[in-house]
C-alpha cells in the first residue's frame, strides 16, 4: 500500500493565516439554517479541508462572518465526463469548470462594530471565503480573560491556543465525554487545577480511580502529579480517603479518613442503588417504610442486622403481622450486606462528613479517593450521593444566608463525578441530589463536572442542562446521539464528532466557547503541570541546585571574607 502524501502547506488552506489574501472560494448559495455553500477555487485542495475547519466570509457591509465547515461535497455538471488519465491539461480544464468542489459552512458568528455576535444573516452571493487570520482565531478561541484555562490547540492549527473562560465554564454544569483512553482525565485534572488556582470555585472530586489526589497513572508505569502535588494549589487541596490501606500502599498522603456512620444513611441513599444492587419496587417500598416502623434513627441498624434485641422482636412481629414481607426484607439485607460491612461504614458518624463540608465552605477543594472501594460501584454511588446531599443542603443554606445579607459572595462549588450515568440514569436522576444539582443548583452556585463514557445513559433532561460539552471520540451511536441531541445543528456536530481521532482530540461546544471548536488537547506532561508549580518547582533538579547555589553564594562569600 502506498503511503499517503502529506498535504502541501500552500494548498492545505486550513491553517490560519497572517493576512486575508488567501481565498478558498466564494459563496454560491445556501441559508443560515442549512449553512451556506461555498464553491472552492480550483487551487484549493479539497482533501486539505475537513469538517470542522474554520473559515471567514467577507460580507458586503464590512461585516465578517465566521463559521465552520460542516460538510464537503464533490459534484460535476456532467457525470459522463471522460476521466483524464494523467493528463494535466484535461484535469485542469475539468477541475476549473466542469467539476464542483463545494463545502457547506455553518455560520456561527459575525463581527459587527468590533464585537462578536451570533450570526443571524448570511453573506451575499460571491462573498469571498477565506481562512481565519491568526488574530481572528485568537479572538474567537483564546479567551482573553485572566481567569482562563489552556485546553489545547485548534485541531487545524497548533499555533492557535484554545482557552476556556473559567467563569463561564463553571456557571453551568460541564460534561467531559469520551470512550476509555481518549484523554478525559488528562484534560480534567489540569482544568480543575486552573479552577482552583484562579479561585473560580472550590472543587469536590469523587475520585473513583484514585487519579486526582496524589498520582495520576499515565500510560505504562508513568506517574504524573495529582492536584495535591501541584505546589501552587496544594495548600487549597485536601485529600480524603475511604480506603486507608490503599492510600498507604500507593504512598498517597491524606488528611482525613472518611467514615460514614450508619446513622447518616437515609432511604433515598439506598434507593439510588436501585440499579446497582438490583432492588425491585417492593424492596424500595420496604426501605422507605422502615423508618416509619422503627425509630427513624435506628431503621438502618435493623436493616444492617445490628438491631437491639427489642428491635429484633419488633421485626419478627412485623413479619408475623404481614406488615413486612420477610423474604423481601431478607433480600434487601443480602444485597446490602457487603456494602454495609465495608470498613468505611461505622456504627456512628465520626464527623468526617462535616469536616469535608467545612473544608469546602472555607475555600478548600476536596478529593475523595475511593481506593479499592472504587471498584465497588455501590460504594461509590452511596458515598457520592450521601456527601452530595449534605453539601447540597449546606450550599442552599449558605446561598440563602448570603442573599438575606444582600451579598453574593457565597462560595462556588464544582462537583466532579466519574461514571456519572450511575447517578444520572433516567430511573434515578429524579431521586439523586446530582439530578437536582444538574437541573437547578446553578442558582445555588453548585454545578457538576460530569466525566463519563456513556452519555446515552444519562437522563435527557440532565443532559439538556449541561452548559459546556467537551467530547472526545465515542464509538457507540447512541452515545454520539446523546451528546448532540437537542442542540442546534446536531447533524453537523455529529459529523464533527465522527471526524475525531481516538486520542487527544475533542469537540468543545456550549456556554464556554463562542462556537463549537475541535481541539487537540494537551498531554498532561511536565509542560502543563509546571504551570501549577512554584517558580522553583518549575525547574529541573539540576536547575534547582544551580539556583539554590546562586542564592546562597553571596552569603558564603561574605562569611569567608
Amino acid at each position, binding site marked *: 500500500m502506498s503511503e499517503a502524501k502529506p498535504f502541501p502547506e500552500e494548498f492545505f488552506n486550513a491553517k490560519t493565516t497572517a493576512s486575508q489574501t488567501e481565498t478558498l472560494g466564494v459563496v454560491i448559495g445556501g441559508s443560515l439554517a442549512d449553512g451556506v455553500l461555498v464553491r472552492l477555487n480550483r487551487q484549493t485542495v479539497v482533501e486539505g479541508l475537513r469538517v470542522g475547519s474554520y473559515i471567514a466570509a467577507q460580507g458586503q457591509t464590512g461585516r465578517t462572518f465566521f463559521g465552520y465547515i460542516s460538510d464537503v461535497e464533490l459534484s460535476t*455538471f*456532467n457525470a*459522463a*465526463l*471522460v476521466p483524464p488519465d494523467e*493528463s*494535466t*491539461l*484535461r484535469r*485542469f*480544464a*475539468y477541475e*476549473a*469548470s*466542469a467539476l464542483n468542489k463545494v463545502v457547506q459552512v455553518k455560520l456561527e458568528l459575525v463581527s459587527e462594530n468590533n464585537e462578536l455576535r451570533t450570526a443571524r444573516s448570511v453573506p451575499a452571493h460571491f462573498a469571498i471565503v477565506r481562512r481565519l487570520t491568526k488574530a481572528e482565531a485568537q479572538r474567537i478561541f483564546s479567551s482573553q480573560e485572566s481567569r482562563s484555562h489552556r485546553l489545547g490547540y485548534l485541531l487545524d492549527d497548533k499555533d492557535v491556543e484554545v482557552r476556556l473562560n473559567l467563569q463561564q465554564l463553571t456557571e453551568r454544569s460541564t460534561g467531559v465525554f469520551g470512550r476509555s483512553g481518549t484523554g478525559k482525565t488528562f484534560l480534567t485534572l489540569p482544568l480543575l487545577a486552573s479552577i482552583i488556582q484562579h479561585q473560580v470555585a472550590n472543587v469536590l472530586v469523587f475520585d473513583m480511580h484514585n487519579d486526582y489526589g496524589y498520582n495520576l497513572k499515565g500510560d505504562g508505569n508513568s506517574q504524573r502529579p495529582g492536584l495535591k502535588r501541584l505546589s501552587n494549589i496544594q495548600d487549597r487541596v485536601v485529600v480524603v480517603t475511604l480506603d486507608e490501606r490503599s492510600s498507604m500502599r500507593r504512598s498517597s498522603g491524606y488528611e482525613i479518613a472518611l467514615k460514614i456512620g450508619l446513622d447518616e444513611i437515609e432511604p433515598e441513599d439506598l434507593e439510588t442503588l436501585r440499579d446497582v444492587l438490583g432492588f425491585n419496587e417492593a424492596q424500595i417500598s420496604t426501605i422507605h417504610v422502615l423508618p416509619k416502623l422503627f425509630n427513624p434513627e435506628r431503621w438502618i441498624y435493623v436493616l444492617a442486622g445490628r438491631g437491639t434485641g427489642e428491635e429484633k422482636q419488633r421485626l419478627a412481629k412485623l413479619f408475623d403481622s404481614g406488615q413486612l414481607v420477610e423474604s423481601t426484607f431478607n433480600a434487601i439485607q443480602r444485597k446490602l450486606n457487603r456494602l454495609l460491612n465495608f470498613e468505611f461504614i461505622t456504627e456512628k458518624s465520626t464527623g468526617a462528613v462535616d469536616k469535608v463540608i467545612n473544608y469546602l465552605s472555607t475555600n478548600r477543594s476536596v478529593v475523595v479517593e475511593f481506593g479499592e472501594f472504587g471498584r465497588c460501584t455501590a460504594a461509590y454511588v452511596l458515598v457520592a450521593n450521601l456527601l452530595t446531599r449534605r453539601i447540597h443542603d449546606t450550599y442552599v443554606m449558605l446561598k440563602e444566608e448570603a442573599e438575606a445579607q444582600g451579598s453574593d459572595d457565597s462560595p462556588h462549588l464544582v462537583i466532579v463525578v466519574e461514571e456519572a450515568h450511575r447517578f444520572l440514569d433516567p430511573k434515578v436522576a429524579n431521586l439523586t441530589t446530582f439530578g437536582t444539582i444538574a437541573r437547578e443548583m446553578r442558582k445555588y452556585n453548585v454545578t457538576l463536572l460530569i466525566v463519563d463514557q456513556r452519555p446515552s445513559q444519562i437522563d435527557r433532561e440532565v443532559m439538556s442542562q449541561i452548559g459546556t460539552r467537551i467530547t472526545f471520540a465515542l464509538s457507540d451511536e447512541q452515545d454520539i446521539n446523546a451528546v448532540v441531541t437537542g442542540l442546534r445543528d446536531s447533524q453537523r456536530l455529529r459529523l464533527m464528532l465522527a471526524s475525531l481521532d481516538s486520542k487527544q482530540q475533542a469537540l468543545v461546544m456550549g456556554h464556554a466557547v463562542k462556537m463549537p471548536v475541535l481541539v487537540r488537547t494537551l498531554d498532561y506532561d511536565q509542560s502543563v503541570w509546571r504551570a501549577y508549580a512554584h517558580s522553583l518547582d518549575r525547574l529541573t533538579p539540576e536547575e534547582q541546585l544551580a539556583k539554590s547555589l546562586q542564592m546562597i553564594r553571596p552569603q558564603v562569600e561574605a562569611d569567608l571574607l
Partner: protein
Amino acid sequence: MEATHGQNASGVGEALNGRVIRSSIETFVFGTRVPEQATPACGSLVKVSAVNEKVTLIGVIYDIAVQENALTRMIARASSEDLRGEESALREQAFVEGSVLCLGYLDARGRARYTFPAQPPWLLDKVLNCEDDEIRRFTSNPRFLVPILRSRAIGLSYSRLIVATIERAASLHADRRAFIESCAEELARQLSDRPVELDDLLRELEVLYE
C-alpha cells in the same frame, strides 16, 4: 490601413492584402491574389477596418478556396513546355477566396469585444492580417472561442479550427501554457454538455501544451 510586410506570426508567409467580396453579420469572404507560398492559413486572425473605421472587426479564417480561371484547365490539360511560363505566372498570382468568421471587434478605444459588430464589413473593405499585439489583446480573454463554438457556418470542423487558432495565438503569449489553460477552461465550460467532443478537443490541445 495597410498590412505590414514580411512574416507575420499569425499568418503564413507574406502579409495578406485582400478585399471583401461577400459579407454578412456572422461571416464574410475576401478575395486576394497571392503566390502559393503566401496562401492564408486556417486559424489566422484577420481584421477589417469597418463601420466608419471606428471599430476594427476581427475574424478567423475558417476556409480557403483557390479559384480557377480560364487558363487553369487549359494549363492542367496541356503538357507542352510552351505553357510553362503561363503556369508559373498563374501560380504566382492565383486568386484565393478566404472565408472568415467574425469573432468580435476592437472598439475605438482598442478594447476587445466578443460580439458581432452592428454592421457587416462592406464590399471591397480591406482585409489584413492582425498585428501580433492585436492578437495578444484580442485573445487575452478566452471568450474569443465562443463564436467559433456557436457558429452554424463552420459545422463539425470547429474543433480543428479551434486548435489551429489557439496554436497560432499561443506563440504570441508570454506564458504559453497559461494561455492554453485559460482556453481549455473556457472550452470545458462551454462544452459541458458535450463531454466526448470536449475530451477530443482537449486531447488535441494537449499536444500544444506539452
